[in-house]
């Protein structure tokens, strides 16, 4: 595509407009983590326009209470919340899945690219079929082991 000055400007405006939609939930998520519970819930009631929205994104009273309660447990329903064991579990799962996937897929990829192998087409078909079946087709048989 020819990228003249005009084209760049149009692209920039388009990206900026779409970018607002993409970035606001993230900013809201980050700034809300510094709000108190009641502030978090009620802060957007009866807005008076976009500028009012932007000012209300910023917490009235900054607090790191949420971050503390993630580690030591907070009030109410989340008294036992502790992020460290959950993080450890996530790490174990993600690291072992990554290593396993790399070994399995890399070795298969070598085979698929090797020209002499007779089963290439069938093997690729098998890998492809996996994507085309509803997830729940597989699940009923797994359920009793839960």
């Amino acid at each position: 595509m020819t990228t003249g000055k005009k084209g760049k400007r149009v692209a920039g405006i388009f990206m900026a407009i779409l970018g607002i939609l993409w970035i606001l939930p993230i900013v809201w998520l980050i700034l809300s983590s510094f709000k108190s519970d009641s502030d978090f819930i009620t802060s957007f009631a009866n807005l008076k326009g976009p500028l009012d929205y932007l000012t209300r994104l910023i917490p009235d009273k900054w607090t790191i209470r949420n971050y503390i309660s993630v580690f030591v447990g907070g009030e109410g329903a989340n008294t036992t919340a502790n992020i460290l064991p959950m993080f450890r579990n996530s790490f174990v799962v993600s690291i072992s899945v990554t290593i396993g996937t790399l070994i399995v897929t890399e070795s298969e990829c070598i085979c698929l690219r090797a020209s002499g192998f007779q089963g290439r087409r069938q093997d690729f078909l098998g890998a492809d079929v996996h994507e085309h079946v509803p997830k729940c087709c597989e699940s009923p048989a797994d359920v009793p082991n839960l």
Partner: protein
Amino acid sequence: MSVLRFPVISFVTFGLFLFLFAREKMNASFYNALSDALKEAGVKKLKKRDVEEIIVTYTPFAYLALAAAGAAVCLGMPRFGDSSERRKIKKELLPYAYIAPQLFFFVIFFVTPAIYGIYAAFTKWDLFNEPVFIGLSNFKTLLFDAGNTYYKQLRNGLGNTFKFVIFSVPLCIIVPLAIAVALQTKARGSKFFQALYYFPSLLSITTVALSWKYMFNTKYGVVPNLFGLKTDWFAPPYSWAVLVIVTIWWCAGGNMVIYQSALASIPKDHYEAAAVDGAGVWQQFVNITIPGMKYPLTYTLVMSVVAQFNIYGQPLMLTGFNNNEANAVLLMYIQENAVKKQVAGMSAAMAVILGLCIMVVSFIQMRVLRSNASE
């Protein structure tokens, strides 16, 4: 020997992993289960249920044996026969060694459950007792028994799934394509925007759905307050918009990356030649960009349709079964029936019908797109 290093390492790794897995199982009265199963199998006639139990319980050992056998083959082969014979055998067997891990997991975790799931569609099964074979009765109920609850569920769920596919798939193609074209101009800040547009794909569906649920909350949410539309955004006409927006926001990044690499591979001189001939931006886009991206577009179209047919997380977390089940999709019914209400046979039949729908749709797409591509 150097060519064999890879399979050997992989088998040893698998062996180690499976050994650890077996150790874990032993702690949980593994031996009791083993001896019970053996005693039962020895005394009584071997029934299907026993075989299932054996397969379930003995798998760690099976893995271990397989890994050991593979390792033995890989290690022992160099000391077998004369050298030309050895080379020939090696050449023939090597591909199988490479696909063995993938094939193994494919058979254990995909083929077996899938076949069992299809078998379950022809049975009456409550998940705990043995499935009773009842032929096509499930399908008869689902497709023709107009007064039945499951008939209504299938109609509603499949209808909603199709609606969602029709609403979301075009946007799933157009929005990432527009973003990729805009990023391709290398305007100021495009690297930042590239990262930004890809970012939501890294979040889990729970994070996405919960944050958007707050943002569309009628009383305190951002969107109703900002635009003064204080209706229930999770009731039918609006809920489709919410579901589609959340889906696009969440998964535009994946297609965007594919389109970006496809755009980068279109030669620049085509555009220059077109510009010399006086083609405008739109003409260049239609006549050069779209044909140049034929295969990525085909791929993403088919994959997006399949992915959107499998929609589950968004309606489950955003709308649930509220509003007279107006947004309940088929996978929600399948899950609900199988696990909560324990009519697994019926829900397996539903899953088979959904699978047939997906297969038919992607088959038609493939045929149409392939015939277009060959012209």
